[in-house]
C-alpha cells in the first residue's frame, strides 16, 4: 500500500506531466469527436440518400478499424505518404475521428427517438424544417442520449492510453512505464496510472450525472 504512495510522491512531476498530456489528448479528441460526430449524424439524417450513405461509410470505416491501426495509419502512413503530420495531431485526429463514429450513431438514434408529433407541432406553429431541427429536435435528441454519450466519453478516455502506446506521446501510461522500467516497481507504477485514469473517468461520470439531472427529459 505504501509502496505506490511513495512512488507517486517520488515521481510526482513525471506522473503529473503524463496526466496533463492525457488530459489534453482527451479534451482535443473530445472536441473533434463532438464536431465531426454531429456533422456525420447530420449526414445520416439528411434527406438525400447519397448523403446518408456518405455518413454510413464514415461510421462503418471508423468504427470497424481498430484504433491502434488507425493511429499507425494516421501517423506512419501519412508521413510515408509525404504528409508531415505531428504525433499530437495524429493522436488527437485518430482518437477523435474514431470516437466520432460512435457519437454520430448515438446522436442519430437520439434524433429518431424524438417523436414525429414534436416535429408536426413545430411545423404547425410556422417553424421551417431547419428551425424545427435546431430548436425542437436536436435539443431533445441530445438530452435523450446524455448517458450513452457519457459512456462514449469514458471509453475515449481509456482509449487514449492506446495513443501513448502507439505514438511518441508521453501520456500517463507512457510515463508510468518509464517509471516502472527505471524503478522496477511495475505494479506500483501502474496503480498510479490507474488512479490517474480513474480521476478522469470519475470526473466524466459526475459531469454526466449532473448534466442528466439538469437536462434529461422526463416523458
Amino acid at each position, binding site marked *: 500500500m505504501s509502496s505506490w504512495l511513495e512512488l507517486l510522491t517520488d515521481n510526482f512531476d513525471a506522473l503529473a506531466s503524463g496526466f496533463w498530456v492525457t488530459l489534453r489528448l482527451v479534451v482535443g479528441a473530445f472536441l473533434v469527436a463532438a464536431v465531426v460526430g454531429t456533422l456525420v449524424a447530420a449526414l445520416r439524417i439528411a434527406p438525400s440518400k447519397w448523403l446518408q450513405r456518405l455518413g454510413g461509410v464514415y461510421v462503418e470505416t471508423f468504427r470497424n478499424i481498430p484504433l491502434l491501426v488507425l493511429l499507425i495509419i494516421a501517423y506512419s502512413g501519412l508521413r510515408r505518404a509525404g504528409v508531415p503530420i505531428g504525433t499530437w495531431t495524429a493522436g488527437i485526429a485518430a482518437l477523435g475521428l474514431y470516437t466520432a463514429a460512435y457519437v454520430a450513431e448515438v446522436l442519430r438514434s437520439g434524433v429518431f427517438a424524438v*417523436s414525429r*408529433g*414534436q416535429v*408536426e*407541432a*413545430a*411545423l*404547425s*406553429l*410556422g*417553424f*421551417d424544417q431547419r*428551425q424545427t431541427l435546431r*430548436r*425542437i429536435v436536436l*435539443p*431533445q435528441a441530445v*438530452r435523450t442520449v446524455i448517458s450513452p454519450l457519457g459512456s462514449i466519453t469514458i471509453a475515449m478516455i481509456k482509449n487514449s492510453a492506446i495513443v501513448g502506446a502507439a505514438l511518441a506521446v508521453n501520456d500517463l501510461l507512457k510515463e508510468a512505464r518509464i517509471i516502472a522500467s527505471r524503478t522496477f516497481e511495475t505494479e506500483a507504477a501502474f496503480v498510479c496510472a490507474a488512479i490517474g485514469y480513474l480521476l478522469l473517468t470519475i470526473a466524466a461520470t459526475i459531469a454526466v450525472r449532473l448534466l442528466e439531472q439538469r*437536462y434529461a*427529459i*422526463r*416523458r
Partner: protein
Amino acid sequence: MADSADAAAPLVELRNVRKSFGDNVVLDEIELLVAPGEAIVIAGPSGSGKSTMLRCINGLEEVDSGSVLFDGERVDPRSRTIGRMRADIGMVFQQFNLFGHMTVLENVMLAPVKVKGVERDAAKVRARELLETVGIPEKADAAPADLSGGQQQRVAIARALAMDPKLMLFDEPTSALDPEMIREVLDVMRDLARGGMTMVVVTHEMGFAREVCDRLVFIDEGRIVEQGPPAEFFAAAKSPRAREFVDKIIHH
C-alpha cells in the same frame, strides 16, 4: 385570390381533394367550405379520413389532386409560404406534443418570439394571459411531464392561440385523455367557439358537437356523406351510414 373585403369569402376551401396512401384511398372528392367564425365538427368512423382531411388544411399532408385554400391562398407543403400560412393556423393534437425540453411558459412563448419576432417580454405577458384563459396560470414554470393530460392539452391550446391564429384545427383533442379530464378541455374549446374563433374539430365527443358546433360534417370511407346542423343530424340523419353511426354513438 379571394377578395379579403368580402365577408362571405370562406376561410378554408377544399376543392375536389383526393388523397391516397398506396392503394388505400383516404380522401375522395372532398368539397368543404369553412366560413370565418364557423365551428365545424368532423365526425365519422375510425379510418374514415377525418384526421387526414384536417391535416391537409395546414399542409401536414399533401393532397394528390384538387386544391386546398386558406384565406384565398393555396396551401402547398412544398412552397416557401407554407410556414407563414401555418403561423395563422393553430393545431391541437391528440397527443398534445408539448415540447418536452421547455417549461410550459416557454412552450407558449417560443413560436411568437421565433416565428413572428414578437419581443420576449411582450410574448411572456401574452403567454401568461393565455395560461390564465385556459385556467392553469400556476403551471407556467412546470415541465410538461409534471402536468396531467388535461392540463397538457390546455397548454397546447394556449400555445396555438399565442400565434393569434385565424383558424384552429383540433385533431381528436380529448381522445388520449382520462374521462375526468375531457370536460376541462372541451370547456376551453367551447369558450373559444363562443368567442368567434373559426374551428374545425375532429372528435368523437358528440355532446360537444351537439352543444357547440354550427355544422357537423360526417365522413365515411374518405367521402363526405352528409353535413348540416348537429341537431338535425342527430335527430334525422339522411344516409343509412350516418344513422348507423348515430345509433352506435347514442346507444354505445
